[in-house]
């Protein structure tokens, strides 16, 4: 078995969810690494965009900012924020990767605050940035995050970015674009999707070294399960080589 760390496993698992010819808006860090790896493996024609305006660059390395010069390196266009967000709103962006301090069973994300007082929060985070926009407007939102029972919570302190809101049809009824929403959640322990009717998070595959009990014990709400839970395929030697040599040679992300 190949020797790899959790971050490498999560990035490889995420990259395999992207198909050739799809489009994605990504941020810095692990999402960017997953998109770059996909471009060099399963999805050579993946269209990568950045919210600040970089369109389809030939990324020379990992950006520090979604607006730095890496995001327009040999790009087809240097555009702007409205253009990218409106491209999402028109329905031409398939995927986005997001994260947060809290996530609930419907995939709603909190990146705004902890504590009840909005004007004087106990802990303040950056806020939405482009997350609410991308989680609202892209077809499929994916989340890559470490998992524990504090982060996977029964009730978020704040819903910054919409998942399936209160489940069922509530997302479609809210006015958000129909048929959009969370698609996968990829953690150190497992990969999840969302049950089509209730829109609740459910286990679809378990990462090497973990059990169903580990996964439920590290989650603040009851998880659903698909009838046949799979084992998450570990990274291949080739994926690891590309990830370590070409995608993140300075180990900015995979060294975390």
């Amino acid at each position: 078995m190949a020797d790899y760390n959790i971050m490498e496993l999560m990035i490889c698992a995420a990259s395999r969810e992207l198909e050739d010819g799809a489009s994605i808006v990504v941020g810095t860090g692990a999402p960017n690494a997953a998109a770059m790896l996909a471009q060099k493996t399963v999805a050579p024609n993946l269209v990568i965009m950045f919210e600040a305006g970089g369109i389809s660059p030939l990324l020379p390395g990992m950006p520090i900012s979604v607006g730095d010069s890496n995001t327009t390196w040999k790009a087809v266009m240097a555009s702007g924020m409205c253009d990218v967000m409106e491209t999402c709103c028109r329905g031409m962006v398939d995927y986005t990767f997001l994260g947060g301090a809290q996530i609930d069973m419907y995939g709603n994300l909190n990146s705004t605050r902890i504590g009840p007082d909005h004007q004087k929060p106990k802990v303040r985070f950056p806020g939405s940035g482009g997350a609410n926009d991308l989680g609202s407007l892209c077809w499929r939102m994916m989340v890559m995050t470490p998992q524990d029972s504090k982060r996977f919570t029964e009730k978020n302190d704040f819903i910054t970015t919409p998942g399936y809101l209160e489940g069922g049809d509530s997302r479609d009824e809210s006015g958000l674009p129909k048929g959009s929403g969370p698609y996968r959640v990829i953690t150190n322990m497992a990969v999840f999707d969302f049950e089509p009717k209730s829109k609740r998070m459910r286990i679809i595959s378990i990462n090497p070294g973990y059990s169903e009990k580990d996964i439920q014990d590290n989650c603040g709400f009851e998880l659903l399960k698909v009838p046949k839970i799979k084992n998450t395929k570990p990274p291949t030697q080739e994926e690891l080589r590309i990830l370590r040599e070409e995608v993140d040679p300075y180990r900015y992300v995979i060294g975390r």
Partner: protein
Amino acid sequence: MDVIDQGVGRLFTDPDADNARAFFRKKPRAMTNKLMTVKEAVEKFAHDGEYLAIGGFGANRIPTAVCHELLRQGRKNMGFAGHTSTHDFQILAAGKVFNKLDIAYIIGLEARGLSPNARRYMQSGEVEVCEWTNYSLSARLKAAAMGVSFVPTRNIMGTDTFKFSGAKIIECPFTGAKYAAMPALYPDVAAIHVHEADVYGNCRIRGITISDLDLARATKRLIITAERLISNEEIRSEPSYTVIPFYLVDAVCEVPYGSYPGNMYGEYFSDEEHIMEWMTVEKDPDEFKKFLDKNIYNCKDQFDYVRANGGMEKMWKLRHQELKILNNEK
């Protein structure tokens, strides 16, 4: 039009399009020489209590010199558009320049982590906040640039971000679909850093424009800092390169390395060492005060600031780093 739902956040600016027209009716159109120092521009066009917006993307093509000058002149009680803001926010929070804040992205410096001082300020209760998203604020600027009082968008609905915003939910008169109505944002003053400008304010930008083209049109007063001045003849030799025309601009300031320590596309990369120094020194308020004295309060202008951080040699290295990216050399 019926309002289906609305956020509890307060609007810090007036979205009324006729009030904006009344202002723009009096804005000078003559093509005059607007060259001045950053000190003069901030004295003349940015005042206590007004609403401020900063162009660029946090630590990319930002008007650093204007941010520093706002601290040196002790501006207070301003409203601020925390739109894609990172290092610019960090500077303004260090001077407590604003106490009313539209939030899309604050405190963080993306992959670099969170600013300890900016976070302390935002957890102090001293700042009145209204919650938005990056696209929401872009759309609000777009509405203002269009000269209307709102535009409809499809983000934000169903979330707490909406509940704590100043947006409203309305029904489309054609389809019956629900939309978020984003009120126009007409800032009192904005500063944008560009690659090239003439003395009248005709500007060229290379690379991504983020929301700056709408911001330049939405703001009542506009301070331009430019890497370098070019002649009006050069502007007229290729009008398709101009993205901001002179009549939007109130002040033109030539500031070489004006986005430092931020990245400037095709010119120089960000000084990551110096930005990390900011993040580290902020943990200790006493050390941070000394750091601000050295880098802002005891500096006269951006030349002094650049000199205090390695001068031409550092700029040459950052330029080399940027061009290395552009040439894809290893």
